């Protein structure tokens, strides 16, 4: 590595920097600015008002401990976050452990890891739709349960419900846990496990006191991915919830469709603050820089 900057570095980095500036940094600034603008049915007008923010939390604090719509929506989204996080973490950890420590040939490891990642490169919408023939009222699962006599009428909560949203989230996002945890685990020195074993640690003790701490960076990165995806989601909740379940992302989408841009922008700022807060909390929990 060469530590002296040259002109080459600047023009080489320029295309990426320009695109990020134009389509990521400026839009974020625009959102913050517009969240203070006023609007009517037809247009948005530059201003500096706080009413977009006060509208979001209107009556929320007076109503406590009752939940206003905004708080209820955030709570609902946070519950999804917690559930999806716990499920993807356990599944992702088990899969990564299997690939790193139980599969012996390296070729097999690569092939099986690819098997886990290939769906990531196919369409999320299609992967959601593909649950319909399985979970629908006359779907495969209900047909099976009926013919086995386990239930007497089709289960209604399988599709377009909290359950189906959760299922789709886990289906789509476990890969974001597997890959970082796999990456951390692959770096663990095997002799540490042997040492733990020789010192009389049981399998669970080794897992909890050696493997989990050493996998922490991967767990943290995977958690950040999963939590931010679920926090901002409106596609999965929309399709799998039959457009009946509220989420923060969906609120923003609906307000955009009604051209209430400043209100949507204020909501986006609040959402962004929440997401950054969660990430901050996570990095407190595990000091990523120290772990790397």
């Amino acid at each position, binding site marked *: 590595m060469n530590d002296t900057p040259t002109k080459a570095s600047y023009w*080489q980095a320029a295309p990426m920097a320009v695109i990020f500036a134009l389509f990521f940094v400026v839009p974020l600034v625009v959102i913050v600015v517009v969240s203070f603008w006023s609007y009517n049915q037809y247009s948005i007008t530059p201003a500096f008002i706080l009413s977009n923010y006060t509208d979001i939390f209107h009556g929320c604090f007076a109503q406590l401990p009752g939940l206003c719509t905004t708080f209820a929506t955030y709570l609902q989204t946070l519950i999804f976050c917690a559930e999806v996080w716990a499920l993807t973490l356990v599944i992702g950890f088990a899969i990564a452990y*299997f690939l790193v420590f139980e599969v012996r040939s390296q070729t097999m490891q690569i092939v099986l890891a690819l098997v886990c990642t290939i769906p990531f490169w196919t369409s999320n919408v*299609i992967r959601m739709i593909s649950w319909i023939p399985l979970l629908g009222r006359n779907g495969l699962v209900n047909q099976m349960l009926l013919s086995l006599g386990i239930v007497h009428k089709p289960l209604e909560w399988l599709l377009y419900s909290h359950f189906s949203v959760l299922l789709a989230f886990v289906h789509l996002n476990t890969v974001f846990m597997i890959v970082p945890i796999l990456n951390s685990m692959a770096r663990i020195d095997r002799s540490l496990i042997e040492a733990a074993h020789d010192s009389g640690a049981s399998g669970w003790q080794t897992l909890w006191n050696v493997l989990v701490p050493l996998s922490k960076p991967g767990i943290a990165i995977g958690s950040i991915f999963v939590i931010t995806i679920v926090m901002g989601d409106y596609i999965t909740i929309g399709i799998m919830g039959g457009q009946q379940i509220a989420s923060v992302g969906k609120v923003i989408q609906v307000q955009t469709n009604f051209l209430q841009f400043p209100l949507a922008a204020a909501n986006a700022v609040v959402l962004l603050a929440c997401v950054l807060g969660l990430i901050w909390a996570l990095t407190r929990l595990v000091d990523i820089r120290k772990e790397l």
Partner: protein
Amino acid sequence: MHEKRTASFYLLAAFFALFVLFLYGPTITILILSFQGPQGGLTFPMRGLSLHWFAQLFRGIGVVDIGSAFWNSLRLGIIVMILTVVASVMAGLAFRRNFRGATLLFYTAIASLIVPSIVVSLGIALEFRIADGGVKAIGDAFQVEWIWDHFTTLMGLFTSGLGAHLTWTFPFGLLIMFAVFNRFNPAYEEAARDLGASPWQTFRHVVLPIIGPAIAGVALFGFTLSWDEIARSSQAMGSDNTLPITLRALTTTVTTPAIYALGTVTTAISLTVIGTVLTVVTVVQRRRRRHGSDAGKGV
């Protein structure tokens, strides 16, 4: 090393098998159901086997123009792929040296990966809306007739839409390049330079072949992520539609297996791209292992 398999191996292997079934089962189900007979419905049983729903798909379902959405997605995907490869390789090279703003650019890329897509999408939409207002104001101020007559919006597939997709593909491209250049031995470049190669020759004949497989990987991410992108596209495409957006709209209106047929076609294209890239990478690496370096062989 070859001790007996423990119980945990079999337990985890079974768990892994179940997970793979969970991953692929549903998709395989709709692949099968898309060949439903003309009388068939959205779920089993299969009533015959036919290409009926594919034929219907190509005739068009409802008012939605699937053909144009298809071409939009394909063109956009290819352009995103090319730009992602070029920008990621260039940025990857830049990051091998310390330059001012390197940390900032890196964290911007990471942020672009984790900021919720709805926020990015809304931001781009607002940015272009304000820019539209600006263009119209200029038109009024300078009495530009062309703007009065022809200008509607700057938003579109290859402006705001393209930008939205790049904010999603660039971080992946950059991270892959990081992984590659972290393991890259600069001795090869030094050797090329010592032998009198120009910087461009060094890049073209030494660096590029070595990072070739990774570039294929970046291309794979670039195309597939754009081809399937929906969350960032939703507000940023203007009046144009991409295939995933169309597909999502169809989920609420179409109640025939035609939607599965569309799913099959889309997935087939994704799998073709994935298959091609993986094959190319494997073949290149095999050939390299066979014809690889003769260092240490006493030639």
